[in-house]
């Protein structure tokens, strides 16, 4: 049971949450400048209101928490949990003022979907959204992929002292360097280099398929941000289908697969350790599950004769599957086609792919390939133990940035997180079913929100009940933060309420 929170604890949490909100406010300068450049005056005013609200809330919280020292583990966890909720509240202001949403809950749903790189949306009339609002949507998903705390650590350097608990609270426990500030800056450096390369690649691809240069550049930037962060947002309501191009699909595929890899793997490759790609337990596990699920999904689709040939099977079947497995959520078909045409076998393969997800310490969601690999190794070890004499002693090894021996603590930790994912998946499936949606459709959407994927069979809509929207927001938040910060936040609030106040 958590100890009774003291005033100092609350002040510390306020201080760091305030800094995160200031970071969110400063981020609004980018869509603000975009509105200025494109002479979108109404949107310009909307972003000024959003900027003012974020800075006011951030400075007020930071003022409340002045001078309370370094955060401990519990402060880091609770701050991470609360910061994401507070950021959702203030980042939704420009959405609400844009007139493209039916309620503030819908706005918060879309912000949480963006920040957690899920990609589901409740926006109305997406095809007529302003350039600045589209910039904000995609910027949120890009920043969310790296982590808003990582951003605050990297650019608000005063937050760096004792920042490791905050960094871990955001489900990034990989330290590329001894200094967490150095690690946070390296993560941003990797992302920004890829941002430049990816935007240029998609800009060229866009012009090659007949899009005008300026629009191709904007779409390239937005689609890249969504691809790298495995977000799944797109500027048009048809998502990637809008482009009607195999080439464009292949470029997006390249970047969202790259984005789903561990930042530590990127760093190893950049440091000359290219063999790590082929030996790492995560890439091996991802390749194995992707191959198995592709075979199952293609078998299901071919049995029903859904697509006329290999090219169509690749562009519709494989693209959707790998988009789901990397938890991106880009689509090259209509949501209802999944339900009406794909059949149960292919849909089940999709659900499994979405739950398994991409790599740990990446922009991807789901169980994560590292945990799947560890559980697989533990199963192998147990099988060997059964087949060998009881006196035999042996160690199970795996390769993850070097050769490691599988420990009981690793297996327990991996199994616990997977169990938590299954629990929130079951919760969202149950809520969907209770709200009257068919079981398979509820399960598909539940896997999509729990794994921060963004693929949809059409259940997610502004017309769905508020209880489902709230459940999906909770699942996206819990899935993205990988439960530790969420459990700590819930425990912290419960401890404060149970003891009736603060000392």
């Amino acid at each position, binding site marked *: 049971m958590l100890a009774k929170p003291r005033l100092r604890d609350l002040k510390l949490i306020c201080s760091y949450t305030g800094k995160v909100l200031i970071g969110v*406010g400063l981020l609004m300068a980018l869509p603000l400048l975009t509105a200025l450049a494109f002479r*979108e*005056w*109404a949107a310009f*005013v*909307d972003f*000024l*209101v959003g*900027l*003012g*609200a974020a*800075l*006011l809330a951030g*400075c*007020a919280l*930071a*003022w409340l928490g*002045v*001078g309370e020292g370094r955060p401990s583990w519990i402060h880091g966890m609770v701050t991470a949990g609360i910061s994401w909720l507070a950021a959702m509240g203030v980042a939704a202001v420009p959405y609400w*003022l844009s*007139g*493209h949403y039916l309620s503030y809950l819908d706005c918060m749903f879309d912000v949480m979907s963006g920040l957690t790189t899920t990609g589901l949306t409740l926006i*109305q*009339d997406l*095809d*007529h*959204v*302003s*350039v600045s*609002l589209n910039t904000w949507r995609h910027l949120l998903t890009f920043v969310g992929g790296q982590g808003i705390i990582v951003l605050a650590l990297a650019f608000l350097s005063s937050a760096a002292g004792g920042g490791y608990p905050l960094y871990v609270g955001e489900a990034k426990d990989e330290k590329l360097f001894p200094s967490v500030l150095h690690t946070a800056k390296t993560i941003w450096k990797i992302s920004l280099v890829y941002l430049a390369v990816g935007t240029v690649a998609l800009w060229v691809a866009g012009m090659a*398929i*007949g*899009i*005008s240069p300026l*629009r191709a550049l904007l779409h390239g930037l937005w689609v890249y941000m969504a691809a790298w962060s495995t977000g799944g947002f797109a500027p*048009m*309501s*048809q998502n990637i*289908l*809008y*482009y*009607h191009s*195999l080439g464009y699909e292949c470029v997006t595929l390249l970047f969202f697969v790259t984005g789903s890899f561990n930042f530590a793997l990127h760093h190893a490759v950049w440091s000359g350790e290219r063999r790590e790609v082929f030996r790492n337990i995560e890439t091996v596990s991802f390749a194995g599950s992707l191959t198995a699920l592709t075979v199952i999904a293609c078998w299901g689709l071919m049995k029903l004769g*859904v*697509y*006329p*040939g290999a*090219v*169509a*099977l*690749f*562009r*519709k079947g494989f693209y959707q599957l790998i988009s789901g497995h990397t938890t991106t959520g880009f689509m*090259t*078909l*209509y949501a*209802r*086609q999944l339900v*009406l*045409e794909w059949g149960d076998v292919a849909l089940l393969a999709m659900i499994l792919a979405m739950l398994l997800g991409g790599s740990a310490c990446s922009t991807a969601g789901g169980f994560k390939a590292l945990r799947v690999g560890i559980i697989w190794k533990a199963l192998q070890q147990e099988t060997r133990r059964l087949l060998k004499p009881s006196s035999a002693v042996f160690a199970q090894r795996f390769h993850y940035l070097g050769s490691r021996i599988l420990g009981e603590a690793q297996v327990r930790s991996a199994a616990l997180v997977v169990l938590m994912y299954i629990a929130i998946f079951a919760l969202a499936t149950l809520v969907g079913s209770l709200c009257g949606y068919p079981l398979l459709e509820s399960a598909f959407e539940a896997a999509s929100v729990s794994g921060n994927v963004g693929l949809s069979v059409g259940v997610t809509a502004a017309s769905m009940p508020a209880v489902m929207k709230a459940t999906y927001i909770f699942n996206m938040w819990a899935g993205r933060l990988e439960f530790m910060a969420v459990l700590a936040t819930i425990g912290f609030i419960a401890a404060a309420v149970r003891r009736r106040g603060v000392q």
Partner: protein
Amino acid sequence: MRTAVPLLLLTLATAGLFGQEGSAELIGKSKEFDGRSVEFVGEAIGESMRRGDHVWLNLLDSGGAIGVWANRADLPAIRYFGSSAARGDTLWVRGIFHRSCPEHGGDLDIHAAALEVVTPGELKRETLHAGRMALAAGLLLSAAVAFFLWRARQKGRERV
């Protein structure tokens, strides 16, 4: 959002005149319509994407947008495409519907045989709200005060 209601009414009115299918119906009953000649009315969105002697258009009605593959020679003059700045021209198309087009990698599309602009689009007017401008000024001013109070308190603590 602001254009959605007039667009819906326009689409419904035009649907009555031409007796064509809506996008929701085409997607929902795609097997039924596969390979058949259909008529569809929707707002041209984004822009036309040139591919050799053909173009891709995306037409939007109340149920969603559908890709239309058309010969450039048959393309009418389209003045506006739907965006944040304009309501796009509304086009009527007659053509062959494909649930999973073998020529285009399995896309659900319409290969146009005839295309017409039925309602011209128009530029949108932006409305600036005086109340929002005042709110923005008030919030930014309050944020500046809060910022200086925070910094002053921080410096005070550092001196102690």
